[in-house]
């Protein structure tokens, strides 16, 4: 049966703004967008007061499947993403086994199709077993459908291996996503090296640890002519280096997470392990630089780095707890409340960072609200506020520093491939 979304404010790609319209969905496709569509055979949904966005695209998340399905699996991850308004997500390969081979890629893709709640694009490993020793079978993985390669949290330290991975990958025109971290500098660090590491007596992760690899990858991207995407930037100097590299015409792109845009190391005071993440939360100066970089185009995308861990793993002494927080269900409300409602950025910029640019980086034709396009969209009540509670989280894990906070921007429905994947 066709679906007719009535009276929403719809983001029209061709006009790049929100216009009051009706949207008629037939099967997987947007059939018609116009004012006052009447279609007897369609089921109507009143979207008065709602904004209809193209479905969000998360280019960096962890679904923990296979291997760590008690934290999350493809089903719970997909539901959580759908509730957050995402219609496409890209999952990182640090699973068990690692996603460095066709059969694991097929496992993820098949399971994603069976669940059918969100489009899942697979990111393959850069090195076999993400061990940083040998180049992974990148060609086969590209054939198997991966949209990028990355060793994510296991940033390859060996410069020569990284160089060869980039040279090799450039043959297949695939972006290389790098989690920039020099382990000789980050060591056993727990929080930002600076005020908080001193105050809390925890070992620090210096900004330099990120900047060393950012600068290395920029140089390697230049000499290999490959596309390097720098994950979750966190420091002022890293933003500056990417800005300069882009000006020099080097093919680099970058992302930032909602939490690095909103929180600073101050959040770690009190030692809540839900503020423990990599890269660590940095200073206000860094945060301002990230926002500036996002607005001037240095940073292309906002990605959640959704990293589920269970309560019992996080409820440990700070140094023993794992790094990372969940992100799907808070991403939009957090950014909307803290950056858009406060006038730092606008909705159109958000669509660029959460839909258009990530789709471009992974070379997928996604997130277009126009006739004939795939019906991937969501409807949000920007005026409705709510408290972000543990009970309502659909992810298997609840590790979020935002629990208990009040946000605006309630996601009322998500439609992926013409089907409701979330509906309040």
């Amino acid at each position, binding site marked *: 049966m066709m679906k007719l979304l009535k009276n929403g404010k719809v983001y029209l790609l061709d006009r790049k703004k929100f216009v009051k319209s009706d949207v008629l969905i037939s099967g997987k496709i947007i059939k018609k967008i116009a004012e006052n569509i009447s279609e007897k055979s369609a089921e109507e949904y009143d979207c008065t007061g709602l904004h209809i966005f193209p479905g969000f695209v998360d280019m960096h998340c962890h679904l923990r499947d296979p291997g760590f399905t008690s934290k999350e699996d493809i089903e719970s991850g997909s539901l959580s993403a759908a509730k957050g308004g995402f219609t496409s997500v890209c999952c990182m390969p640090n699973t068990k086994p690692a996603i460095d081979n066709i059969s694991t890629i097929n496992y993820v893709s098949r399971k994603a199709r069976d669940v059918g709640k969100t489009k899942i694009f697979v990111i393959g490993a850069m090195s076999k077993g993400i061990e940083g020793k040998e180049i992974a079978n990148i060609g086969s993985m590209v054939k198997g459908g991966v949209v990028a390669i990355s060793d994510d949290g296991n940033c390859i330290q060996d410069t020569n291996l990284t160089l060869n991975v980039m040279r090799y990958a450039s043959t297949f025109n695939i972006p290389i996503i790098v989690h920039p971290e020099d382990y000789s500098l980050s060591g056993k660090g727990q929080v930002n090296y600076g005020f908080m*590491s*001193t105050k809390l*007596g*925890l070992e620090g992760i210096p900004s330099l640890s990120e900047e060393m690899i950012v600068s290395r990858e920029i140089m390697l991207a230049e000499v290999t002519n490959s596309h390097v995407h720098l994950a979750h930037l966190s420091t002022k100097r890293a933003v500056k280096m990417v800005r300069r590299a882009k000006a020099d015409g080097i093919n680099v792109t970058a992302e930032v997470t909602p939490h690095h845009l909103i929180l600073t190391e101050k959040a770690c005071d009190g030692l809540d392990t839900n503020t423990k993440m990599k890269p660590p939360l940095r200073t206000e100066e860094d945060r301002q630089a990230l926002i500036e970089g996002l607005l001037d185009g240095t940073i292309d995308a906002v990605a959640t780095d959704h990293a589920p861990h269970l309560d019992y793993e996080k409820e440990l002494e*700070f*140094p023993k707890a794992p790094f990372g927080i969940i992100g799907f269900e808070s991403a939009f409300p957090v950014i909307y409340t803290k950056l858009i409602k406060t006038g730092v950025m606008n909705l159109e910029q958000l669509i660029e960072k959460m839909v258009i640019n990530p789709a471009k980086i992974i070379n997928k034709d996604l997130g277009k609200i126009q006739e004939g396009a795939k019906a991937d969209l969501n409807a949000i009540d920007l005026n409705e506020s709510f408290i972000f509670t543990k009970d309502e989280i659909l992810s298997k894990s609840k590790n979020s520093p935002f629990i208990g906070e009040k946000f605006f921007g309630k996601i009322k429905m998500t439609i992926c491939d013409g089907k409701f994947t979330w509906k309040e």
Partner: protein
Amino acid sequence: MINKINLTGRCLFDLDDYSPAEIETIFETTKVMKKIIQRDYKKVPTLNGKTVCTLFFEDSTRTRISFELAAKRLSADVISFAKKGSSLKKGETLQDTIYTLDAMGIDLYIIRHESPGAPALVNRYTGKPVLNAGDGPHAHPTQALLDMFSIWEKKDSLKGLKIVIVGDILHSRVVRSNLIGMKKMGAKVIVCGPRTLMPPKVDDVYGVIPEYDLNKAVQNADVIMALRMQLERQEQGLFPSLGEYSKYYGLNNRVMKYAKNDVLIMHPGPMNRGVEILPEVADSEHSIIIAQVTNGVAVRMALLFLILGGKIGREVK
């Protein structure tokens, strides 16, 4: 009347949530406790029937003995738990361990742990008062209290004193608590050591001045505290050798000339004689290093007494 401030049921994670008046109360009580342990019969029945548990996940015989002695002198029962040989090695979590112990009826916990924040976790699990006996490099408030008491006893107040702490500032839990406490009591504090052993933003965090030249740092100092230098830091490449360290940051008679005539010399122990402190200084009339140890027991008695609700006057005097 010294016991007007009530500390019953309080935890001591670090000195930041204790007011100057509360710290004064602890000092006044310590003075009384010190009298008790200087008597022939060193025991009072004040905490009869109370049970105190020491949880040492990290070895520190000195601190543990000091706490246990303090509890015993107040007639509390003491249970000690050490990580060695416990089921923790078999994957039992801190939480499980605490729940098991708590079922045995404990009134107060004393914990030493390698993770910052562990004492607060024990309090969260049990709801009982917890004394932090050192949580990683984060805090060691009872050591700071005994250091501060040792100064207070000699100088009557910390207000306006120039205190220099020299050595491995970065890894020292003693320093952090001392900086908070000494600043709170009105002292001017200078931290001194090589740049590789200085924590970042130490001035922003504590409002103290870092100084890298020891001769400059100790000018007109009222108190100089040397910290133990661990060989491990040399292996980590943070300084080249003990010899070179001693040359630039060791307390010797030459350095002492810059300080005030009545300067106090302190060290949390155990000392590396000839490294951070030379015997000529450690054994001089300026040194109050031995008094620090005695004061350690007295300060801990005072804390147990105040927190477990002992009454001064009736039993103690």
